[in-house]
């Protein structure tokens, strides 16, 4: 009678990813904002700070690394920590809970839409950077390898932390007020808008706890010449440490998500 073989979590997760992308693309304002905002910021900061930081490194070049890293935090962490409470208010999550769809599929779907958004965002940002702001792309394949794992691991970590954080806002309406300040403060502390080493030491130390600082530094290792590594806090790019810290945050986010995820607003 009833078949006992339900579709696998991965199969459903990929289907959810497709659905989430479709939904995202149909919210036109959101698409334009998500994709154009980093370019606008690059335009503003690139026009304000026209000086070179050091031998041939423009501020735009430095800033592009920060914009991509903070794109990871915006499209993953910020977007999800705001959207999931809304989905919870609407009853979308409770309805899903009543189907054979496992939580893992929901998480996989979110990682996919965040990753897809990141790819589009980075692509457009780099094009605009090259055409309008004289940004140079790296030529060393090793740097592109770093770039690839940073985007992949960064998307995954940012997604898992966004899902974990989504239990904190009490309602969808208040979510943005809870989440946005966290992100903005983190961006200032992590050297997205300013040269990291120009920040006070205590700010640098606080930032070093959180993943955005490491994503930004990792992206600098991709977009800045290796000679610039000497100007980092540790005097090097710390690539291995960057990988481990982002991975640790991903696992922590995943663990918290699995333990605390709420499907409905129960009293």
């Amino acid at each position, binding site marked *: 009678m*009833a078949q*006992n073989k339900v579709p696998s979590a991965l199969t*459903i997760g990929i289907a959810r990813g497709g*659905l989430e992308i479709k939904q995202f693309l*149909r919210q036109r304002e959101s698409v334009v904002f998500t994709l154009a905002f980093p370019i606008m910021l690059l335009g503003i900061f690139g026009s304000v700070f026209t000086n070179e930081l050091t031998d041939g490194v423009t501020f735009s070049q430095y800033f592009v690394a920060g914009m991509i890293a903070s794109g990871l935090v915006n499209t993953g962490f910020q977007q999800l920590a705001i959207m999931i409470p809304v989905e919870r208010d609407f*009853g979308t999550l409770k*309805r899903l809970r*009543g189907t054979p769809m496992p939580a893992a599929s929901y998480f996989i779907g979110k990682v996919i839409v965040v990753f897809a958004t990141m790819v589009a965002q980075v692509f457009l940002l780099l094009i605009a950077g090259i055409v309008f702001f004289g940004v140079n792309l790296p030529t060393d394949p090793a740097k592109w390898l770093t770039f690839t794992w940073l985007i992949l691991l960064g998307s995954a970590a940012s997604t898992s932390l966004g899902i974990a954080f989504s239990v904190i806002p009490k309602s969808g309406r208040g979510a943005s007020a809870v989440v946005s300040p966290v992100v903005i403060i983190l961006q200032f502390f992590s050297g997205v808008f300013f040269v990291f080493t120009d920040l006070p030491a205590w700010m640098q130390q606080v930032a070093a706890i959180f993943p955005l600082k490491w994503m930004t530094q990792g992206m600098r290792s991709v977009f800045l010449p290796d000679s610039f590594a000497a100007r980092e806090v540790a005097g090097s790019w710390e690539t291995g440490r960057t990988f481990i810290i982002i991975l640790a945050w991903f696992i922590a986010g995943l663990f918290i998500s699995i333990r605390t995820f709420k499907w*409905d607003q129960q009293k």
Partner: protein
Amino acid sequence: MSDLGSVISVRGLKKSYGSTQAVAGIDLTIARGEIFALLGPNGAGKTTTVEILEGFRARDSGEVSVLNTDPAIKGEAGRIWRNRIGIVLQSTSDAGDLSVKDTVAHFAKYYSNPRDVNEVIQDVGLDEKSSALIRTLSGGQRRRLDVALGIIGSPELLFLDEPTTGFDPEARRAFWALIKSLRDSGTTIVLTTHYLDEAEALADRVAVINQGKIVEVATPALLGGRATSLATVSWLSEKGAQAERTDNPTALIRKLTETYKDEIPELTVKRASLEDIYLEMIGGADGSE
């Protein structure tokens, strides 16, 4: 323990929130292939009971078996269990940027043995809205989409929570026909509703819940001794409006026909409606506390 042929079996179910006891010892057996309605005022424990049966809430004590499975089941076994049930929640208001067909087709991917997407859309009467975005649907159409998502997995058991709230009378009739046809094709249906006419039109059996307990379980026709309750015969005499309560209205009318050779003016015979019985039942339970 659970009798053969029963889809849901509940013994001594209890659930408290803090010091408030929402469910105070409920026993229920729901048979395969019936439409079973749960009636009760707000806060009676109706929603809590159903949410425990649906696996959304944990219980404090009691035995619960739904399709021979404890709804508290987790993991892969939980998925296999949910594969066999359909749940239509009270209100879901998605962002609505997807079409009806996209949404139904997507939910079909969650199940091992989904029904045909177009057929389900047609069954709920949304075939003309198949490619419309959800946010363009009316309240009643959205509700029918909710039902489509509840039945796409060909469930053996379907939970319907307040399914026709906000429907116009015509849409309700169409909806009732849909629910009956699901029952006729073998689906067991657990319905919670505020509308007594809905329970009367649809349910094979009705349970009235009040203050966390089942007051009575019966067919709508027999609930609260309705079939044997006194009938009220009323008519208009020269002296004005007359009304008489009797257990034998036919005899009274026979007598009246002797007085009025032609037509008995404004004759009505009224049995207690389900609503009268229901209000009496929950009112009585209120007073006993």
